[in-house]
C-alpha cells in the first residue's frame, strides 16, 4: 500500500503524491514513516525531509510546523518547504552571509537577532539540501548501509 503524502505551506501545496517512505525532521528527532504507521501528530523541527518513491528520492528543506500521520496518509504542514531542485543556491548563500553579518555585527535589537538566527538556520538547511540534490536509491543506500559482511569461512565439516 502506498503512502499518500502532502506537503503544504501557508502559501502553497509543495508536494502531493504517493510515496513508499518519508523521513521527516521531527522536533524530537528524525522520524521514518512507512505505510501502516500508527496515528501520530508531531511537531517538526528544521531540517531535511526525505521521501522515497520506488528508486527515486527527493529532498525538501523544511522549517517548523506539524506532521499528521495516518496509516495511509501523511500530511506535512510546514512554514516553508523547498524542493532541492527549486532552491536558488546563490540566493541562499547571500542570505546566509547577510544573516551572519548581522549576527557578528553586534548591537542588534532582540527581535532582529531572532530573525537573523532563523534566517541563518534556513539558509544553512537550504544549502545543505541543494548541495546534495536528488540521488538515486542505490547511491543513497550504499552510503547508509554498513558494508556487506564478507562471507565467512564455511562452517563445520
Amino acid at each position: 500500500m502506498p503512502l499518500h503524502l502532502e506537503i503544504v505551506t501557508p502559501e502553497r501545496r509543495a508536494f502531493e503524491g504517493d510515496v513508499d517512505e518519508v523521513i521527516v525532521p521531527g522536533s524530537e528527532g528524525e522520524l521514518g514513516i512507512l505505510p501502516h504507521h500508527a496515528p501520530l501528530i508531531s511537531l517538526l523541527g528544521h531540517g531535511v525531509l526525505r521521501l522515497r518513491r520506488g528508486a527515486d528520492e527527493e529532498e525538501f528543506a523544511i522549517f517548523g510546523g506539524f506532521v499528521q500521520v495516518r496509516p495511509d496518509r501523511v500530511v506535512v504542514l510546514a512554514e516553508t518547504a523547498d524542493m532541492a531542485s527549486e532552491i536558488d543556491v546563490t540566493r541562499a548563500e547571500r542570505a546566509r552571509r547577510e544573516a551572519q553579518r548581522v549576527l557578528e555585527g553586534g548591537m542588534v535589537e532582540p527581535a532582529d537577532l531572532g530573525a537573523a538566527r532563523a534566517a541563518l538556520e534556513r539558509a544553512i538547511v537550504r544549502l545543505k539540501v541543494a548541495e546534495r540534490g536528488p540521488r538515486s536509491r542505490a547511491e543513497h543506500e550504499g552510503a547508509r548501509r554498513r558494508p556487506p559482511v564478507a562471507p565467512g569461512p564455511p562452517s563445520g565439516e
Partner: protein
Amino acid sequence: MPSQRDIRRRINASRNIRQITRAMQFVAASKLRRAQEATLAARPYSELLDDILADLAAVLAGDEHLHPLLNRRPDGKRLIVLFTSDRGLAGPLNSNAVRFAAREIVEHKGDLEMVTVGRKGRDAMRRARVPIIAHFPAFGDRPRFDDVLPLARLIADEYESGTHNQVDLIFTRFVSTLVQRVDLVQLLPLTPVADTHGIPGSQFIFEPQPEEVLNELLPRYVGTRLYQTTLEVAASFFSSQMVAMKNATENADELIDDLTLSYNKARQANITRELIEIASGAQAR
C-alpha cells in the same frame, strides 16, 4: 453654447481618462487572477490545520485553560480589526467596509478598540474618533505569510494580556468577481471545529505532549486566519477595482459619443451661419 474648441478639448480629456481607466481595468484583472490563485493555494493549509486542531481539541476535551487564546473572559474590551485598502479607485469597496464597521460600533455599544489594516479604514476611523491602538499598511498585491506575522503577534499579545476578551475581523469577502460582501468573523477566543472525519483525535499519539503541540499550533492558527483574510481582501480589492474601472471606461465612451455629437452640431451650426452670411452678403450687393 460652448465653442468648438472647448468641446474638442473635453473630448481629448475624456479620451485620455478612458485610456487610463482601461489600462487600470486590465491591470486589476490580471492581478485579480493572481490573487484568486493565491487564495486557492492557501486553502489546503488552513483546512489541514483545522483538522489537527480538531484532533487536539478532542484529546484535550475542551479545556479552556490550556492556552490563553482559548480562554473566554466575561469582561474586557472588544478589539475590531478592520481591513481596507491603502489606495482608492476601487468602487464602493472601502466605503462599504467602513460603513459596516460604523454600524457595528453603533449597534453594539461598549468598550472597544480598533486595529486598522489599510489607510482608508484608518482615515475614516480617525475621523469618527474611534480609538485605534495600531495601524498596518495594507499588505499589498501579493501578501506573503511572513507579512501578517507582526499583526498576528500583536493581536495574540493583546488578547493574552487580558485587556481584550474578543477579537473580531471586519473584511470584504470575495464571493465572485461581481459580488464582494463585507463580513464580520470572530477570531478570538478560538473555537475549534468538531472532530468529524477521519480518525478520532483520541487515537493519535502526540509528540511531544498535546499541550505543547497546542502551544505551537494556536499562534500559527491565528496567523493563518489573518493571512487568508488578507488574501480575500486583496482579491476583493482587485475585482472591485476592475468593475469600477470598467464602468468608468464605459462612461467615458458614452461621454465621448455625446460630446462628438455636440461637436458636430456646433460645427454644422457654424457652417450654416457662414453660408447665411455669404448668401445675405451676396444679396445685399
